[in-house]
């Protein structure tokens, strides 16, 4: 009966996704929800691949199919112009010596950064005034400057219907500031012995173009340091970052109606500490599963539970306005989480 209940919620959740995709004949909501669905599927696929802690060898067929799915998403993103060849793992994952070298990590990892990007522009198109913003203000400034520029002649699927479709540049700028932020993180973070730091160092892109405009770096550095150190204290579990990443993508969807309007500065958090966002009291007990029972369809049980929990984690965020910080921080934590997995925690 428990399974049945979980299944219902999963169906509702996915019916919602399907409904959104099916209901619209084209235009803004369908594109956004398509992106959202793609992001969700991407996250779920990664979870299936990397959270598998079975005692027996995982099914090659399943891994091949999931990996094909991730590759297809990667191809789509590439065609949309979002993909940049960044963040290749420096070392192959140690936890997969099976099957004579079949690796999912490498393509998946580059997809991760790519898939995380499209969520940002949609968030950033909820435009921002420059003052009273939390960092990274560099992002905000770049974004604002680009948002005021004339719309690009090449439409982006996720921006159709929005009042100010940003040109491709914000994505470039975002990536650049993102990568530069990563560089800053690795400089700032004192715990260089932690695997996350090493991983982040390894995965930071080697030749990021400099950010177009000089940002108030201090603010960004402060927050990044704060996030970085808190992250390295190990407070964020894998599932939390996954949940927050997925919740963040859902958040994008729930806030997409607001993207049609230009919001004012009240849309940004001034007094909400990042701690509350990142380390909110997310119940991760459902993600802890007994290894002894993992041989029987663990992944099949986890998937509906996870989606269920994603819905639950969504609720704390419903009342909070969109911030550009959130996607940025989510990407960092997601990135760290992925590196944790790859390095072989």
């Amino acid at each position, binding site marked *: 009966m428990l399974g049945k209940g979980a299944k219902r919620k999963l169906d509702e959740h996915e019916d919602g996704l399907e409904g959104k995709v099916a209901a619209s004949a084209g235009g803004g909501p369908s594109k956004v929800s398509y992106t959202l669905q793609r992001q969700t599927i991407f996250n779920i696929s990664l979870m299936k691949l990397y959270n598998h802690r079975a005692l027996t060898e995982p099914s090659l067929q399943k891994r091949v199919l999931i990996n094909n799915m991730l*590759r297809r998403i990667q191809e789509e993103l590439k065609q949309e112009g979002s993909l940049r060849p960044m963040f290749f793992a420096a070392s192959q994952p140690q936890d997969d010596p099976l099957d004579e070298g079949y690796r999912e990590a490498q*393509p998946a990892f580059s997809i991760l950064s790519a898939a995380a990007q499209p969520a940002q522009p949609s968030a950033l198109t909820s435009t921002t005034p420059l003052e009273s913003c939390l960092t990274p203000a560099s992002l905000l400034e770049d974004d604002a400057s680009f948002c005021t520029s004339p719309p690009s002649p090449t439409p982006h699927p996720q921006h159709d219907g929005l009042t100010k479709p940003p040109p491709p540049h914000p994505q470039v700028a975002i990536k650049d500031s993102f990568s530069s932020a990563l560089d800053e993180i690795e400089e700032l973070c004192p715990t260089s012995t932690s695997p996350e730091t090493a991983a982040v160092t390894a995965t930071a892109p080697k030749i990021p173009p400099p950010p177009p405009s000089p940002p108030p770096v201090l603010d960004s550095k402060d927050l990044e340091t704060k996030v970085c150190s808190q992250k390295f204290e190990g407070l964020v579990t894998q599932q939390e970052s996954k949940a927050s990443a997925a919740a963040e993508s859902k958040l994008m969807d729930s806030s997409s109606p607001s993207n049609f309007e230009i919001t004012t500065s009240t849309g940004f958090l001034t007094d909400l500490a990042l701690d509350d966002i990142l380390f909110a009291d997310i119940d991760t007990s459902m993600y802890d599963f007994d290894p002894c029972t993992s041989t029987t369809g663990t992944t099949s049980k*986890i998937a509906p539970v996870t989606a269920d929990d994603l819905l639950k984690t969504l609720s704390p965020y419903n009342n909070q306005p969109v911030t550009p910080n959130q996607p940025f921080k989510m990407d960092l934590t997601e990135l760290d989480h992925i590196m944790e997995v790859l390095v072989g925690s």
Partner: protein
Amino acid sequence: MCESQGRFLKQIRFGDSSYSERRCVADIISTVEFNHSGELLATGDKGGRVVIFQQEPENKSQPQCRGEYNVYSTFQSHEPEFDYLKSLEIEEKINKIRWLPQKNAAQFLLSTNDKTIKLWKISERDKRPEGYNLKEEDGRYRDPTTVTTLRVPVFRPMDLMVEASPRRVFANAHTYHINSISVNSDYETYLSADDLRVNLWHLEITDRSFSIRARPGAVQLRGFKPGALKPSCDLQRLPRKDIVDIKPANMEELTEVITAAEFHPNQCNTFVYSSSKGTIRLCDMRASALCDKHSKLFEEPEDPSNRSFFSEIISSISDVKFSHNGRYMMTRDYLSVKIWDLNMESRPVETYQLCSLYENDCIFDKFECCWNGNDSVVMTGSYNNFFRMFDRGQKKDVTLEASRESSKPRAVLKPRKVCGGGKRKKDEISVDSLDFNKKILHTAWHPQENIIAVATTNNLYIFQDKLNGPPVRGGGGLIKTNPGERGDTTECPLSVLSV
């Protein structure tokens, strides 16, 4: 078939008699297979056990009565192992069982887990020798000085004892998980398939697998005698050559795996294998020793309007079965059952849609399918303990449910209907309320009679057909209930609903 005869549900449930909430993982049935005569039904489970049921002989006093199935033999086929190289367990779950045709008093079957195939001999013993001169009946040796006369030991009847003994163990041949085994029509060789390779074995030889010695212009042998088989390798020492190998040089380029394989029922040189991309390749072993180049490729072009994120996953073929006459083959992917004419590769001749798309991990469930004895009806399982039958001739199909709650022991199975969404009529099941944890993955059809075996998670249901009209074979069936009981039969005509 469906319209003229009432369909009876005589249920024999083998499994946990208590309410199925208490599930023992090891009892999950993982394969079901009738033998060539249909008298024996073998099931394998997740705990590595094989349970064989035997059909009771027809009662002379009631010639209309088909025998029911009772437990015949139980043995532990596979044990869990540990792969020290990869630090992973090797599951003892029985993936497939295939019977060999009976040649003498004993029965033989092949059972396989992920890595190892075993040939089991099941023999009966109903007599034992008694009256030894030197031994007591309990086995103790007699004092020779007490022996005064000699006698000849005689066989005396004893309680029937069914023994299963492993005769061959075919090991160390598969790097990946074995998904199929198939006995050749020569009854001397068989194939085993894992995700990337297909092996050819000779039943007598366990230390090597084979490929065919390719001789241009050679007359096809009826069977592959060991002399005609070229040992492809010594499994212990030499690099292996399989008859099919789709492993790419660079594993990162791997995008497709083998999902099932089967020998043609009549042509001992022909076999097919299906892939995760929805294609089926037919190979002729006479063409070359390594059957990488297929003779025929069966693939249906994708309908672009149905494309979704999951298009590839749901097109992955989970089972492929030749028809008994060898002219058709059936494939099961996630959404449909397709029947292919072996002479037409471009598209299937028949397609039966099963249910709407379910976007959860169940999308990786592997459903099997089976033909009835005269290839007129095909059957496959689904969710909510439903199973579907498609009558090819009459273009009708029916959905039935295997559950203790919904069927009395002798009642007719009530056809179910699943509605996709929107308005739900009375007695219909809405798609949203299907239980995805209750799935029928394994089904089997008696080779001659209308007897089917349907495995839910850890229960086995055996259903028999009550015939009103012209019988399929013999008389109609007076259905017995569980062993020892007898009761009235109830019947009602089957109303076929198309889902």
